[in-house]
């Protein structure tokens, strides 16, 4: 749904296409999960404002959301040329390098970003993860932790390296419930942001943010339907698609969703949802 902010920003941009209001619009669209639209807005803005590091930073962040890591890397490298020491770019490059297995470079970028923003807990957590991964590299393959769920069922057979910006305990919140099976659980807040869990493809792309943004819309829609149908609050949504079965339930202010390959019986997916709900509620109550 188009929010009032996005409407207002679109109109402001239309009124003055040479302004930099596209930065806010692109960011708002990205946050709302309208990644392709955000990308178009940002790249058009880039044509007019190619010397502004903020624009390259925005394009990079959107490129990450689109899974276009090569573009993201180019853009953040440009940011560092235009604004040496830009901590957002260092952080982004740190994650990208980590995701691409360049652990030493990742550690370097994240370390530099942490120096610039010492209070940033996500950075220190990420740096810990990178350092742990560097330590892992020195272990035997069978000693390394296995990774999370691939995004598409076609890729379910090949586990991938975990990659996410969340603290490690949030990312692995549902590991116990899900076990080793190719299943995923995500806790999404009211704005569609991932709070816990992850959703990683075989090639290492974390699609949790995309999935969260997309499916949180279903929950909004369900709330509206319930309001008008007088069926009380919604408790659960289950749907089967060609490749997966998905179950969702309200959890706190947000929504919890579980996805499993279509081969997993629907009843079992529901059971997974219940268990994941328990886990998520306890986690939320613990104030983590």
């Amino acid at each position: 749904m188009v929010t009032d902010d996005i409407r207002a920003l679109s109109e402001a941009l239309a009124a003055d296409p040479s302004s930099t209001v596209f930065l806010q619009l692109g960011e708002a669209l990205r946050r709302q999960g309208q990644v392709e639209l955000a990308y178009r807005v940002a790249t058009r803005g880039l044509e007019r404002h190619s010397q502004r590091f903020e624009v390259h930073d925005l394009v990079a962040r959107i490129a990450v959301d689109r899974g276009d890591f090569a573009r993201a890397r180019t853009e953040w490298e440009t940011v560092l040329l235009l604004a040496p020491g830009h901590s957002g770019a260092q952080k982004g490059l740190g994650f990208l390098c980590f995701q691409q297995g360049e652990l030493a470079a990742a550690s370097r970028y994240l370390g530099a970003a942490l120096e610039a923003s010492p209070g940033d807990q996500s950075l220190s957590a990420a740096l810990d993860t990178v350092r742990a991964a560097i330590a892992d590299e020195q272990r035997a393959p069978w000693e390394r932790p296995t990774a999370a769920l691939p995004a598409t069922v076609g890729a379910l057979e090949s586990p991938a390296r975990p990659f996410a910006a969340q603290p490690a305990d949030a990312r692995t919140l549902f590991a116990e419930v899900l076990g080793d099976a190719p299943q995923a659980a995500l806790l999404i807040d009211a704005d569609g942001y991932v709070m816990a869990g992850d959703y990683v493809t075989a090639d290492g792309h974390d699609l949790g943010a995309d999935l969260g943004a997309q499916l949180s819309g279903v929950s909004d829609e369900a709330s509206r339907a319930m309001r008008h149908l007088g069926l009380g609050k919604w408790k659960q949504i289950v749907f089967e698609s060609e490749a997966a079965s998905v179950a969702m339930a309200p959890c706190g202010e947000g929504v919890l969703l579980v996805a499993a390959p279509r081969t997993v019986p629907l009843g079992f997916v529901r059971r997974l949802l219940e268990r994941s709900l328990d886990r998520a509620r306890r986690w939320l109550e613990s104030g983590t």
Partner: protein
Amino acid sequence: MRLTVAASWVESPLKAFVDDGRVRLAILLHSSGQVLGQFGFARSVDVMTACALAAATAASSAELGRLIDGRPFNAMHYVGVTQQIFLAPVPIEGGKLVLLAVFDEDSSLGLVQLFFQEFCATVKAIAPAASAGEPALDADFERELNRNLAVMFGRA
């Protein structure tokens, strides 16, 4: 936020209709074609012209209905390539207004119709009767009028 209301009571029902019905733009107009209020994404729409045309379309289809069916047609729905419009009379005490709604694939005709019913009920309940109101202009407004017109016509 893009909300323009000529009459403040329009604001709340229009906003609810746009939000619930997921429509892009809703305009409530007088059957003469004057805008009473609008809510939504109006950037690409010349609202005043849209209202003139909407009022004309609503009026002519009502007449067509009378001619063919002995009573006015109600709502109209037009489907474009990416946008659709819904145009329908909104009954109020002693007359009717017209609602023009523009929507895309985020909504549907069914949803628009559903929330239009609620919209009509709300508007009927809260629309005030037409009144003369307080004088708006000063007694000597002609001076400003003449000056403005002269400037407009390059006669100043």
